[in-house]
């Protein structure tokens, strides 16, 4: 009963409140200027020499890009010039080859395959994936042996009788 009595009173109060605050008031407030950073016009030169200007916060007047869509092989699939480039500006690939030989090169791996092809065909035909990997390792040994650096013996052909998972 108490609930039923109090229920009709509530909407009356609410309506009276709305009527009081009906008038809109806007007190004078300071509208701050948006903090926009200072922007310069910059001339961007892409790697193929094409240029455009844009607005930037960088104070450098000219920006020259060394790597962009104009000299990436992915964006230039028909460019022969880009396909054969081996980017080795820091000389890291050269340093790697001096230390580990060229056995890791994709091209060198194929030639070695052809040389010793007949030996492998008889031995392990069913596992081309592992075959390649083993060849990589033996390739390193082969290179190092030639230079007289390798300490171990080549173990590519005389392997132990232990069978790997792929041979089954």
């Amino acid at each position, binding site marked *: 009963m108490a609930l039923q009595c109090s229920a009709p009173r509530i909407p009356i109060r609410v309506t009276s409140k709305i009527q009081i605050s009906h008038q809109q008031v806007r007190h004078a407030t300071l509208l701050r200027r948006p903090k926009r*950073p200072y922007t*310069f016009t910059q001339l961007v030169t892409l790697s193929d020499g094409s240029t455009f*200007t844009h607005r930037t916060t960088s*104070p450098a*007047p*000219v920006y020259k890009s060394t790597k962009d869509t104009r000299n990436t092989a992915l964006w230039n699939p028909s460019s022969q010039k880009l396909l054969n480039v081996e980017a080795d500006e820091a000389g890291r690939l050269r340093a790697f080859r001096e230390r580990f030989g060229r056995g890791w090169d994709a091209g060198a791996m194929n030639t070695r395959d052809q040389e010793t092809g007949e030996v492998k065909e008889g031995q392990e035909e069913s596992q081309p994936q592992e075959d390649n990997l083993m060849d990589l390792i033996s390739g390193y040994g082969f290179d190092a042996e030639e230079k007289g650096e390798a300490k171990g013996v080549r173990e590519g052909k005389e392997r132990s009788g232990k069978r790997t998972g792929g041979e089954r």
Partner: protein
Amino acid sequence: MPRRQEIITRLTGSMRRPTSHICKTCRLSLHQQRLASTATASAAHAAPIEPPPSGATLPSTTPSASLRTTYKVKASILLSRPPLLTRDLTSFEKAYFLYQRRLNERLAMPFSRYFYYQKGTPGDVEWKRKIKERLTPARDIGVYNAYAKEGWNDEVPVGANESEPETQVDALLRDAEVEVLTGEEGQEVKKHKVEKPMPRTTEADLLGDTKSLDRRLQRTLYLVVREGKEGKWWFPNDVLVGKESLHTAAERIIVQAGGMNMNTWVVGNIPLGHYIHNYGATSKTQDKSEELRGEKFFFMKGRIMAGQANLADNKLGLTDFQWLAKDEIQKTLAPRDWNGVKNILSER
């Protein structure tokens, strides 16, 4: 019961009940829809479908009793080179952009040099030296200082070229020059200039070489060819062979006309447009039953990425080619042909 009735009506496809509450036009359209949906089921109501055109000829819509009029169906390739540069700005646009930049100079926060250059570093010294000449951090708005007393005076005088993009680029390049003090006591000042970008007009533009692809860099160029000596200029085209599609025909025409030294891409399977060329009075009669009235060209869109056309051993009997923009094509084509293709060609 009413629900079951509804289901029954829906299954049988009868629209009698709902149509009684619908206005006349809607009822008409619904009736047509029903016909279309049940066309396969009830063949009696379906409209007769015309047999598709076979071979290289299209039957005319009004065949006469004695002579059947036919057209040659030809595929044509609109091989285009897209614009390589953005268009030149209009004088209004140039003025507007300069005005906006000078306005921005007044509205944006001032440049905080200490944030970008540490005190005493060469960059800092260089900045101070250059801003003495410029008066403002911005390089491309001419001599204008938004914080000086004359800051309100941002209008460009008549004849000034500060709003020209070339002038602005020059200003940027001049600012990028680095001065290096050389000599034993730092007496000589050596300036390292920055390379200027290539001009927007090329050599082929100056020479008027319409065979070059390095011309009119702001416009789309189209390949137009001439068939036979003193023939008219037109786009490379050929009759469809057998059951060839338009796409494969377009690829074949490119190779047969321009040779293999072009890296091209035929964009879609659907033609951009078509053009019917009537022979008029000179219509030919092939045999007793058929009258060849003209040619129908279906234009396919193609793009050239690299390479150049070479007509040395083309199989379409072409003698000459040009790469032309739309306005030049208008002058080259016959007026009737131009009317047929002008809306297909790109304005820029």
